[in-house]
C-alpha cells in the first residue's frame, strides 16, 4: 500500500503548525468512513488486513496532527530536523522546572485534588504559551529556536503526566 504521502498530504492540509481542528476531524472521519475495517467485514482476511493497516495509518496520522507536541515534532522532522536525546536547555528554564516539580510535590502532599487540578491548569497555560511561540518561530523559519520550544513542551508534558499520576494516587484510581 502507498503510505508515502506525509500526514498533511493525507488529510489534504497545508503543513502549518496552526491546524483547523474541526476541519482535521471532519477529514479524518471522511477517510475512516471509507476505509475502516467495519466496511470490509466478511470480505475475507485480505480485505480486512489491508483495511486494518490503512485505518491504523490514518489513526496514527490523526493522532500526530491533533496533538500539538507531536505535530511540532512532525513538522520539524519534515524539515529533516530531529530531536537530540540530551538537549542542552537554558539554566533559567531548568530552574523553573525544578520549582514546578517542587510545587507539584507540595500539591500532592496537601492531599487536596483541587490543588493538583489548579497546578495542572497552570501547566496547561504554560504549554499553550510555549506552543504559540513554537508556531511563530516555525513559520518564520527559525527552526533552531523552534526546536528549543519543543524540548520545553516535552518537559511540560512529562510534568503534566506526573501531575496526572499524582492525582490518580490521590483519588485512588
Amino acid at each position: 500500500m502507498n503510505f508515502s504521502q506525509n500526514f498533511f498530504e493525507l488529510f489534504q492540509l497545508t503543513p502549518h503548525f496552526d491546524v483547523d481542528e474541526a476541519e482535521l476531524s471532519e477529514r479524518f472521519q471522511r477517510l475512516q468512513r471509507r476505509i475502516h475495517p467495519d466496511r470490509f467485514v466478511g470480505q475475507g482476511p485480505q480485505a480486512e488486513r489491508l483495511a486494518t493497516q490503512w485505518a491504523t495509518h490514518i489513526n496514527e496520522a490523526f493522532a500526530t496532527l491533533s496533538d500539538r507536541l507531536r505535530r511540532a515534532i512532525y513538522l520539524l522532522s519534515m524539515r529533516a530536523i530531529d530531536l537530540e536525546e540530551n538537549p542542552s536547555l537554558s539554566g533559567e528554564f531548568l530552574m523553573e522546572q525544578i520549582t514546578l516539580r517542587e510545587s507539584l510535590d507540595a500539591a500532592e502532599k496537601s492531599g487536596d485534588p483541587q490543588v493538583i487540578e489548579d497546578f495542572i491548569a497552570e501547566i496547561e497555560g504554560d504549554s499553550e504559551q510555549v506552543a504559540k511561540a513554537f508556531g511563530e518561530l516555525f513559520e518564520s523559519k527559525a527552526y533552531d529556536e523552534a526546536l528549543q520550544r519543543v524540548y520545553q513542551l516535552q518537559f511540560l508534558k512529562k510534568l503534566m503526566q506526573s501531575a496526572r499520576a499524582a492525582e490518580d494516587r490521590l483519588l485512588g484510581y
Partner: protein
Amino acid sequence: MALIQITEPGQAVDPHQRKRAAGIDLGTTNSLIASVREGQTETLQDAVGNSLLPSVVHYGADKNGASEITVGAAALAKATTDPMNTIASAKRLLGRGLAELAGTEAAEQYAFVPVQEGMVQLQTAAGSTSPVQVSAEILKTLAQRGSETLGGELDGVVITVPAYFDDAQRQATRDAAELAGLQVLRLLNEPTAAAVAYGLDSGDEGLTVIYDLGGGTFDVSLLRLSRGVFEVLATGGNASLGGDDFDHRLMTLMRAKLTPDLVLSPSLNRRLLMQARFCKETLSTEATVNFELTEGDLHLSGSISRAEFEDAIADLVDETIRAARRVMRDAGLGEEAVDQVVLVGGATRVPLVRAKVESYFGKAPLTHIDPDRVVALGAAMQADVLVGNKPDAEMLLLDVLPLSLGLETMGGLVEKLIARNTPIPVQRAQEFTTFKDGQSAMLIHVMQGEREQVADCRSLARFELKGIPAMVAGAAKIRVVFQVDADGLLSVSASETGTGGTAAVVVKPSYGLSDQEITQMLKSSFAHAQEDAEARMLLEARLDAEQLTEALRSALAQDGEALLSDEVRLGLFQEIDQLAQIAGGSDVALIKAETEKLSQASDPFAALRMDQEVRRALAGHTLDDVLPVESS
C-alpha cells in the same frame, strides 16, 4: 479470501439476498439476542415469549452417567437444589485465573479445579468445564433461537463486551463464540452499542455519556455523536462491579439481621441470595421489604428498608461516579459539556444510582429504551450494517483501547506502549536492547493496566525471544510491535532487527485457548459431531474459492484497466479460470493451496484499490473527482 468489494452509494440490497444477522448481549445475569427485521430492531423471544435468557448453565448427569446440559430458566430453577453444578455469572470468570478469584463469592460458590496457570476450570457433575464453555452454551442457545426466528443459520453476529474488558476477557469471549460455531462480525463495546441504539433512535447529536451498570460489570463511556459517527472519546469502569455486588451486600445485611452465627447450607445460601435479588428489585419502588426463608424446622424472617440498603451500597455507587469523573478528566471536558446521559443495565433501576448520576452530571438521565435490551438492540443495528444489508449506512463506530498496554522492564516496572483511550485499530513499536554481553534470549512480558508496577497490572502473555546473535550488551536491537485490531484484540510480535532479524514471535494472551484446544473442543461438541467433517471442509474450500474468484472478477471489471498493466490483468484472469476449474474437483488441499496462491497474486491489486479508496474519500463523493493514479 475475497478481494475488496466496494459498494457504491445508492446500490440497494436485493431483499432475497438480505443476510441473517444478529446482535448478542452476553450478559452476566441475562443474555439477549436481537435482530433488524423489515426495518424494525427487536429482541427475539423464546417459545414462551421471553427475551431474557438467564445466563445460567446447569451441568448434570443422567442415570447412565451421560452429561446433561441445560441453559437458561430451566438451569436457574436448579440453582437452589444443585448449586455446585449450576453455573451463573460465568462472565465474571472469563479470562480470569485462580489466584485472581481467590476470596471472591465465586470461589465460595463453585468447585474450582486446581490448575497451575491459565483460566479457571469448574468441577461439575458433567466433568470439568471452563467459563468459555459455559459462555459457548449460552451463545449456542441464543443462536438457535435466532436461526429459528429468522428462518435459517445466522450469517454473522455482533457480540457485545464490557468496554472495560481487558484483552484476556475479550479473547475468551471470541473463543466462546468460535466454540459455539458463530461467525463473529465484530466484538462491540456495550456502551457503544447502547449509544448506537439511542443515537439512531433519536437522531440526537452531541456529547453523550453512557453509564452502564450491569449484573457484574460497570462501564462508563463518553462519546461524540455527529452525522452517524459514534466517536468514543474516553472510557472507564470496573470489570468486576455490578448489580451482583448489590445483591451480595444486601445478603450480608440480611444474614446479620437473621442469626449472625448461623452457618447456612450451600442451598440455603443460594436461596438467600435469590431473596436478596428480589428485595433489591422491590426496594426500587417500595420503602421497605419483608423476606423469609424456611428449611426444615428453620424459619427465618426479617425486613430491610431502602435507607439501610442504600447505606450498604453507597460506597459502590460512589466508586462508579469516581470512574465517571475520571472519564471526563481523560477527555479533558467538564460535566457541564455533556448533552445527554443514558442509563444502561438492570442495576441502574436502583434509585440511589439514578440520584447520584443525576446529581453528578446535573441533568436527568435518559432511560426510555429498556435498559436491559438497549445493548442487544444497538448490537443488532451494527450487525445489520456489518453483514452488508445496508450499503448506504452512514454509521461509523470509532472506538478506543480501554486499558493501557505495555511491557515489563527492569526493576519490575511497566513501560507503556499504548495509552488507554487511544483510538483503535492502532499499532505501536518500541525498541529494546540486551543488558548482558552475549545475551541470546530476552523475556517479553506483555502487561495491561494503568499502574507503574508489574504486580499491579494484568499479565497478558509472557514469551521468550530466542536466537539473538551474540553481541556486546546494548548492541542488539529488539523491536516489539503491538497491534490492536478493530475488535480491541492485541497481537504482539518481536524480532531482532540489528542483524537483519531472525527470530520473530506472535503471541496470544496466556488466558486464551490455543487453536488446538479450540479444535479439540469443537470436535467433541455436539453441534459438530454429527456433521461429515470432510464434506464440510470441501464445501467451505469451494465457497472460499468461489468468493475470491467472483470478487476478483468484479474488481477487475471495475478497476482492472485503470490500475493494472494488460499483462498483470490478463495473468490474473488466467489464474481465476484455473482456480475455478480446480474448485470443481474434490481435492480440498489443492483448492485451498490455489485459493491462497490467487489471493497472494491479487494482493498488490487489492492494495492499489484500497489506496484508491483513500484518495476518493477526500476527493468528494463522485467518481469523476478521482485523483490521477500513482503507482506504489
